[in-house]
């Protein structure tokens, strides 16, 4: 599977504090461990 991070990095995401950032900001300065959860519960 190929993921185009160049396309994904500009996607805006909403953080739990309500702020919106560009996804790519999360790995600009630090290695990122991005964990996708299954569901809440």
């Amino acid at each position, binding site marked *: *599977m190929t*993921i185009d*991070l*160049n*396309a*994904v*990095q500009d*996607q805006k*995401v*909403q*953080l*739990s504090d*309500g702020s919106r950032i560009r*996804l*790519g900001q*999360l*790995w*600009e*300065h*630090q*290695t*990122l*461990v*991005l*964990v*996708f*959860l*299954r*569901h*809440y*519960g």
Partner: protein
Amino acid sequence: MAQLRRQADAFKEAGARVVLVGLGTLEATKAFQSRFDVPFTMIADPQKQLFNAFQLKQAGPKDLLSLGMAAKGLSAMFRGHHLGIPKGDVRQLPGVFIIDTGGRICFRHYARNPADHPSAEDLLVRVRTTLSPHASA
């Protein structure tokens, strides 16, 4: 989640940032973070835009109703993990990606079933390998 929370300082010391992506609304994400004392940044992704962008898979009926899954659920409960009513798409499978500062995916894990996830210790090893000066680009 509990494993990751216990290793939060180790990830920080290793120089990595852990961010969780959930299927809930902003309100549900805040509630989850508060209830389980989550020490990481969380992203609310109720429309599954990120889940889709990272091509996370969906579980089939057999994956959700297998004896193996039931056994893992009971085992988690006896170990003190909270089991509640699922909120969100129960068929959505989890996954983990490690992305370095050059924007490269250095590690990816697509869960084959709802209980398939790498341990926090394994992820720490991967992070340290990624951050090693000898790691290849």
